[in-house]
């Protein structure tokens, strides 16, 4: 074995020190640039951080693949929901969701409560995109709704707002996206599917559609949105579809 020269050792040491400093500084720089995923902690933190940062660096504004009408699945699959049905949700369902409301609060200039009709007034957008579940299955449908960006224009987020948190009335399922994803033109408050109303099984009356990410972040029966700059003070595991099982916040892959 060759013996190390002093110069080589010095250079190696300097490179190692620079590497460690870089690793310590990287999260801070990424946070400042707004490309640090909020769940980058623990053993899987580096992987999560790299994956989300890569998606934001390579092509932040790319649009999810859109298909022509002939690709629409004739046999889409409406995934199950679990747990006891809250009385409030049962009531809404009995009314045929005619009185469904989306409340928007938190760091916004104008907190508001919108009916689905109010949302339809703000704008309409449709896309033929694929829903891909992390389990492996998928289908293609036309999704019709109001771009979330249009709704945000109405409530006017305050400067420091960084996340839009959204909650399902069915089971309290909560997730959040950052302002970048919230403003993406394909991010829809979806109320229609394949030229009709959004069927109950697919999340009707209102589902958040986020086609650049996997199914579990496309929460059904959304009735509440909160804009926030920090996850502190919110239930533990916010941003994780199922905190107990540690589903990743970013699901673009």
């Amino acid at each position, binding site marked *: 074995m060759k013996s190390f020269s002093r110069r080589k050792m010095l250079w190696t040491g300097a490179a190692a020190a620079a590497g460690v400093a870089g690793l310590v500084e990287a999260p801070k720089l990424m946070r400042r640039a707004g490309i640090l995923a909020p769940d980058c902690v623990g053993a899987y933190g580096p*992987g999560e951080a790299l994956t989300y940062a890569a998606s934001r660096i390579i*092509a932040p504004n790319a*649009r999810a693949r859109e298909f022509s009408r002939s690709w629409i699945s004739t046999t889409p699959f409406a995934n199950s929901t679990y747990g006891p049905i809250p009385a409030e949700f049962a009531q809404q369902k009995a009314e045929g969701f005619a009185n469904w409301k989306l409340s928007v609060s938190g760091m916004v200039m104008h907190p508001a409560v919108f009916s689905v009709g109010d949302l339809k007034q703000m704008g309409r957008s449709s896309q033929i995109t*694929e829903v891909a579940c992390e389990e*492996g299955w998928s*289908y*293609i449908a036309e999704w019709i709704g109001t771009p979330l960006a249009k709704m945000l224009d109405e409530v006017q987020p305050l400067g420091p707002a960084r996340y839009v948190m959204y909650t399902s009335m069915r089971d309290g399922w909560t997730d959040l996206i950052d302002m970048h994803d919230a403003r993406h033109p394909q991010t829809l408050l979806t109320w229609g599917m394949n030229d009709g109303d959004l069927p109950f099984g697919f999340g009707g009356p209102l589902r958040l559609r986020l086609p650049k*990410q996997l199914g579990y972040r496309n929460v059904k029966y959304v009735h509440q949105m909160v804009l926030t700059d920090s996850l502190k003070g919110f239930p533990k595991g916010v941003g994780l579809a199922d905190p107990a099982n540690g589903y990743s916040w970013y699901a673009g892959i």
Partner: protein
Amino acid sequence: MLWRMLGRSDERVVAGPRHGAVVRVTHWLTLVAFVALAIRGVEIVFSHPRFYLGETGNVNMKPLFTLPVASSRDTVPTAYRYVLPDQNGWSRALHFEAAWLLLFVGVVYVASGLWSGRFRRELRPSGGAWDVLRGYLRLGPMREEPVRSYNALQRAAYAAVVFVAFPLMIWTGLAMSPAFTAVFPWAPLIVGGRQTARTLHFFLTWGLVLFVVVHVVMVSTSGFVARMRGMITGGAHGDGGAA
């Protein structure tokens, strides 16, 4: 039989199966990444043990084939009455962290292989791979083993893994990513759709697992200790090329 190799390894051990530091380090890091990736591979299959061709596929559609295993989802019809526990959360994270490791290791390995001329020297097809295989299987005469490099069959196998299987694994994996395909929509299209990519990913995994099994058997039957030493410390004898 493979065991014939046992008694034939001495001359090469003396010549010193040697590997450079880059090959040794990337070899073991690749093993770590591969095991982590494969753990997830086994795990994820249970959440939807059905495979399809084309762009879309779900339980309302006819699968290409179904694995006869239980599922971790009650929405998937199986022949079993029970539902396995959901382990998708952590194993997803493990898969992608290991994928990043593999990517970095792969970049270093390929850059070094090209730069040093090692690929040209050690992995370039040398012809006669079938003859070597026939020799191993006793269907033909045993070919003389090169002392300081790989034989034709090894070259073919390693080149297939490095230049075909791993790139296809990465490709078919990324072809399932909604964010990656937003940027590169042709990635799933070119193999026939997202579900085809998933099915290919599944078979490629078995291809690589098969490679690992044969690889370990061959190492074990051709001077295990010397070969492990060669891949861990680089080997103590001689200064020949990588073998």
